[in-house]
């Protein structure tokens, strides 16, 4: 049953990735004129003489003289078989080289954020439900409303502002200055962990808020059920009673929401990283788009989408493994 489910999901993954690649390719082609125009304009404005023959040579180099389906084929086979995402015009470097350092950071921030959301939302939801209408409950209710309504980048702005006013820190980043261009080492990783909680909390805020409310609502429903009263009358301790039954049941819908949480987290990460100046894919994407460096931009959209889809798939499989009932409800 489980293998069948995984098999079906894997089968669907192929077409899914194909459509994502087509969308990304369309995005690369989208700006008016072809992608060489910007490059030629820049070369000319920098005083470099570019003759028509040279433009033609460049055109052939990038395969721009071919039809669109052929170009797509060239582009996707290069990615699949050689890991070659094309060349960035602004960086004058292969796209894969630019992204190699940044994609893992994006993935790390996103995964940590998802974990953070769970770790925060479940206990707070349980506490709010068991202490309904208490001061703490009202406090978290208030926080969750604000959290849902505040886009991550605004939260990041406010955070930066407070950090600047109170601690005179003008940039957050992911590393202290001495580690910024240092090679990876334990010290650098520890330095990163000291910084990474800021984007995690900011990106995770909205999702934590939503999930906290779901958890609280589910718990309140469960606490009203007969079996809780029975368990209590039999003399189970309150903690044991909570953890053993209602919390477990309530957690199912919370966990199954990861499918729609992940795209949101990645979206949030892109913007928050720009504001906080974190060297993930977000800031590069914006710069690439502003410069119409489309191979770079398209590749980032492609990679982010593929990461999200695969992440969702993994979490779905884990979920089904944890709770077989979901299989029949058809998450796919």
């Amino acid at each position, binding site marked *: 049953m489980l293998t069948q489910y995984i098999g079906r999901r894997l089968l669907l993954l192929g077409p899914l990735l194909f459509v994502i690649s087509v969308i990304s390719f369309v995005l690369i082609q989208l700006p008016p004129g072809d992608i060489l125009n910007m490059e030629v304009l820049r070369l000319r404005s920098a005083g470099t003489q570019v003759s028509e023959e040279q433009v033609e040579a460049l055109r052939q180099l990038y395969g721009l003289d071919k039809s669109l389906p052929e170009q797509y084929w060239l582009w996707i086979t290069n990615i699949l078989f050689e890991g070659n995402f094309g060349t960035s015009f602004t960086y004058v470097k292969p796209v894969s080289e630019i992204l190699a350092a940044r994609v893992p950071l994006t993935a790390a921030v996103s995964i940590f954020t998802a974990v953070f959301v769970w770790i925060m939302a479940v206990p707070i939801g349980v506490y709010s439900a068991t202490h309904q209408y208490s001061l703490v409950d009202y406090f978290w209710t208030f926080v969750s409303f604000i959290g849902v309504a505040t886009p991550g980048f605004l939260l990041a702005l406010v955070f930066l502002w407070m950090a600047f006013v109170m601690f005179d820190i003008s940039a957050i980043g992911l590393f202290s200055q001495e580690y910024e261009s240092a090679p990876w080492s334990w010290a650098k990783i520890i330095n990163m962990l000291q910084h990474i909680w800021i984007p995690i909390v900011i990106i995770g805020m909205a999702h934590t808020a939503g999930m906290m409310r779901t958890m609280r609502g589910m718990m309140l429903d469960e606490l009203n059920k007969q079996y809780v009263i029975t368990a209590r009358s039999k003399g189970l301790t309150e903690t044991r009673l909570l953890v053993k039954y209602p919390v477990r049941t309530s957690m199912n819908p919370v966990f199954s929401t990861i499918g729609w949480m992940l795209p949101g987290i990645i979206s949030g990460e892109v913007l928050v990283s720009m504001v906080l100046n974190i060297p993930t894919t977000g800031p590069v994407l914006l710069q690439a788009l502003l410069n*119409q460096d489309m191979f770079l931009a398209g590749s*980032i959209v492609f990679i982010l989408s593929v990461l999200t889809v695969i992440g969702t798939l993994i979490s779905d499989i884990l979920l089904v493994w944890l709770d077989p009932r979901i299989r029949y409800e058809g998450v796919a």
Partner: protein
Amino acid sequence: MTESVRHEAGPAVEAAESADVSDREKQELYTASQRQLIWRRFRRHRLAQVSIVMLALLYVLAAFAEFIAPYETSHDFKGFVYAPPAKIHLFDEDGFVGPFVYGLKGGRDESYQRIFEEVKEEQYPVRLFVRGDSYEFWGLFETDLHLFGVGEEGQIFLFGTDRLGRDLFSRVIYGTRISLTIGLVGVFLSFVLGLIIGGISGYFGGVVDEVIQRLIDLLVSIPQLPLWMALAAAVPREWDSIQTYFAITVVLSIVGWAGLARTVRGRLLSLREEDFTVAARVSGVSEWRIITKHLLPLFASYIVVAITLSVPGMIIGETSLSFIGLGIQPPAVSWGTLLQDSQMIANVALHPWLLIPALFVIVTVLMFNFMGDGLRDAADPYSIN
């Protein structure tokens, strides 16, 4: 403990309470039409009511922006760069004189920071219906009447000014127009797109339906923002404000329709399987009557809820895109473009009023969420909660 017991017995307590209520009121509840029940339920949701009033107010601001804003968006006051929000005084040294502002005098302090001082000798009373910058009202007639102001000699900057000495309050009011309508127009477009594509999907069924459903699954499972950014970046820079406005709306809805379509579709399918639909069908009610009498009213309310709850996403989308410079382009003003000025954090630290537009975004989104919650409760007036 007593708290939770009381809650556990929720419906029972409610029943007991309603027994105390006079019989006449009970009769009213039992004989109330669905519309009355919905209204009754909605009235219980205080926050939703407050939200509707506040949102209505914001939309009035947007509609009458030229009249309510004391200045034009591009009116730059030389010598009033980064002036702080005006203090409105009621009393001067001699006692009560009604609302007025003092004149402002700009200068530099010892550390060469820009500072402004109130000039006590200059008093400008705040008056209603003053003449100021002229504008064309809704493209109908030319006028220079503004809701309030201090006349030509003085200046009133309720939210301070920006880096070019433009009145932030006026700009926020004008920005309301784009930020608030883009949400509505975007959701409307998404809805139409969803209806058309959903219609095709339902009409042809089979493979077409399957492909479209998978496409919807795909669109909701990949991150929206990078797609929005890439599409928005393709909008030509030389387009004028109105073209850009519509292009951004289209970009927002092309990516955003899938989520809305999925929610609505799910609702419709589950309603079709509800007991009362089956019961009606079994009793020999015609399909037409089932659809118009039983399904449409409920569909309509669910759709209204789904639409209300997806407006905030659109508003945040526009704000985010404009904030990073890919959305609405200056000289057009939206809350997002206003927030661009706060990208330099040192700027915000010295001039915190630059963050005021953020407050408008948060409040608006909050209000839409509350309103959606209230509507959702009201849409299903028979549920117990």
